[in-house]
C-alpha cells in the first residue's frame, strides 16, 4: 500500500450552510458545498468523473448527487460506514485515481439535520438485542465506553470536560463555528445530564451543513489554482458495529488504522504538526489521542489537562472547534479533513498554525466502530 503514497492530491475544499440553514434541503446544502469546493479548485461539474457520497437520509447517495449535479461519472461509491464514510471515500477515490478509474474525484456530504430536527427517519433496523433496553443512541454507547475508561484508568469528569473547553476555545477563533461563547469546565459539568457520565456539553452539536473536497492526480493538481495537498497515507479498520461487541471498550480500531496510515506516509507520530479527530463525544478525543500514539493508553485524560489541546497547548487538536463546537450535521467526518486541508494551505485566519507540513485527519463511524486515518501533507511534501 505504500505505493499509494501521494497518488492523489486534494485540490479543492468547501463547506456550506454550517450551523443553521433553514429552508434548505439536504441536497441543496450538499450542492452548495460542492460548488464551493469546485470554485476553490477552479473546476466545473463537467470536470468531475468520480463521485463519492453517503447520506443519512437517502441511500444510493452518489446516484442522487450525480443526477442533481448533472454528472455522469465513470466511477462512484455511496458506501456507508457511518461518520467516517467521507474519509473512507477519500481512500477509495485515491485508489480509483491511481488505477485510472477516474481522474477528478468529488467527495461530498451534507445534511439539514438541525432544521429537520425530529423529522429525520432512521433507515436502520432497530437492534433487537440492544434497543429493548432504551439506550439513547449513539450517546449511551459512547457513555458506556467512557464509564469503562474512567474505571480502568481513573479518567475524570473534569478531564472529559477539558476536551469540550479546548474545542470551544478553538471555535472562538473560527467565524464558521456554531458555538463560540466561552465555556468552562464547570459549565460542562453543570449542563443538562444526558447519559452518565455525559452532559449535553460532552456531546457533539446537531447542526446543518455540508462539505466537499476535490481530488486528482499530482500531475493535474499542479496545473490548478490552489496549492495541492497530497494524501500521504490512509488506512481504515473496524472491529464491531454495536458497542456491546467492541472487543475492548477502551481501545478503538484507530490503533490499527493509525499505524498503517503512518507507515504508508512514511511518518511517525512526532512528525504530525496538527491533529483533526472526529470528536462526537469528549471521550473520543481522549481515546483517539491514545490510539493514534500521541500518548500511552490510559493517559489521554491526563494528556488533555490544563489546556494542553486548547490554543497554545502542547498539541494542536481540532482547530475548527470540532464536532463539539463547530458543526455536526449528522456525520462529521468530512469536516476534520477539510480543516486539515485549510491549515496546510494557510487558509485559517486567526487560528492558522505556522507553516504546518503534516496533518492527521481521523474519522469515526457508528459506535466507536469504523475508523479511518488519513495523513495529509503541505504542497511540496512529495
Amino acid at each position: 500500500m505504500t505505493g499509494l503514497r501521494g497518488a492523489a492530491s486534494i485540490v479543492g475544499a468547501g463547506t456550506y450552510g454550517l450551523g443553521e440553514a433553514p429552508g434548505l434541503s439536504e441536497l441543496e446544502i450538499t450542492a452548495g458545498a460542492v460548488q464551493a469546493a469546485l470554485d476553490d479548485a477552479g473546476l466545473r461539474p463537467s470536470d468531475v468523473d468520480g463521485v463519492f457520497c453517503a447520506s443519512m437520509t437517502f441511500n444510493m447517495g452518489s446516484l442522487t448527487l450525480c443526477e442533481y449535479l448533472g454528472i455522469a461519472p465513470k466511477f462512484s461509491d455511496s458506501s456507508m460506514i457511518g461518520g467516517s464514510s467521507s474519509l473512507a471515500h477519500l481512500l477509495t477515490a485515491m485508489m480509483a485515481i491511481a488505477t485510472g478509474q477516474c481522474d477528478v474525484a468529488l467527495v461530498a456530504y451534507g445534511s439539514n439535520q438541525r432544521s429537520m430536527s425530529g423529522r429525520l427517519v432512521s433507515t436502520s433496523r432497530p437492534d433487537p438485542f440492544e434497543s429493548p433496553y432504551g439506550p439513547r443512541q449513539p450517546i449511551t454507547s459512547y457513555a458506556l465506553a467512557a464509564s469503562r475508561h474512567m474505571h480502568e484508568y481513573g479518567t475524570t469528569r473534569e478531564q472529559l470536560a477539558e476536551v469540550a473547553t479546548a474545542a470551544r476555545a478553538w471555535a472562538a477563533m473560527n467565524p464558521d463555528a456554531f458555538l463560540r461563547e466561552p465555556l468552562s469546565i464547570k459549565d460542562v459539568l453543570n449542563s443538562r445530564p444526558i447519559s452518565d457520565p455525559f452532559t449535553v456539553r460532552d456531546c457533539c452539536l446537531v447542526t446543518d451543513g455540508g462539505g466537499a473536497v476535490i481530488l486528482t492526480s499530482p500531475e493535474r493538481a499542479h496545473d490548478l489554482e490552489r496549492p495541492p495537498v497530497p494524501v500521504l497515507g490512509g488506512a481504515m479498520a473496524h472491529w464491531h458495529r454495536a458497542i456491546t461487541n467492541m472487543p475492548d471498550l477502551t481501545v478503538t480500531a484507530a490503533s490499527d488504522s493509525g499505524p498503517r496510515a503512518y507507515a504508508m506516509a512514511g511518518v511517525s507520530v512526532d512528525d504530525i504538526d496538527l491533529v483533526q479527530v472526529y470528536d462526537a463525544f469528549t471521550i473520543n478525543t481522549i481515546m483517539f489521542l491514545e490510539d493514534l500514539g500521541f500518548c500511552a493508553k490510559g493517559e489521554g485524560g491526563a494528556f488533555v489537562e490544563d489546556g494542553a489541546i486548547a490554543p497554545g497547548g502542547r498539541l494542536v487538536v481540532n482547530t475548527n472547534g470540532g464536532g463539539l463546537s463547530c458543526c455536526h450535521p449528522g456525520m462529521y467526518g468530512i469536516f476534520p479533513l477539510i480543516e486539515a486541508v485549510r491549515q496546510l494551505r494557510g487558509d485559517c485566519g486567526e487560528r492558522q498554525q505556522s507553516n504546518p507540513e503534516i496533518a492527521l485527519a481521523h474519522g469515526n463511524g457508528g459506535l466507536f466502530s469504523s475508523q479511518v486515518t488519513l495523513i495529509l501533507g503541505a504542497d511540496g511534501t512529495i
Partner: protein
Amino acid sequence: MPADTAAPGPEQAYFDALADGRFMLQHCDDCGRSIFYPRALCPHCGGSELSEREASGRGTVHATSVVRRRPEQGPPYNVALIDLEEGPRMMSRVETIAPEVVRIGMAVTAVIDRSGDDPMVVFHPAESSS
C-alpha cells in the same frame, strides 16, 4: 421452505425460548466457546455446529450508564453491559436498585422481565453480592 433451510433461525429460536421462560446461549461445538447474540455461524471460529444451552444467569457489570430524561418523560434508568459467566457480553439493565448506584464489577443475576410487550433479560444485584 427450501430443503436445505432450517427454521426457526437462531434469532427467532432465542426469542421463542425467552417467551417460554428460558434464557439460552449458543455453544459452539467446534471451539467450545459461548455465543451471544445468536448467530448462524460461530464468530470465533466459523463453525456451524451450534447448540443451545441455558445460561447460568450469573454475570458482572462491565460498563454502566444512567439515561437521563426530562422529568415529564419519566425517571432516569440504567443501561449496562453485562459480562456473562459463560463469556459473552450483552446489553441490559440492572434493576431493583437506583440506576446511579450500579457499579462496574458488581455481581448480578439474570431475570426475565415480562412486564413489557416482549420478554427481555434484565439483571438484579446477586444475592451474595459483597
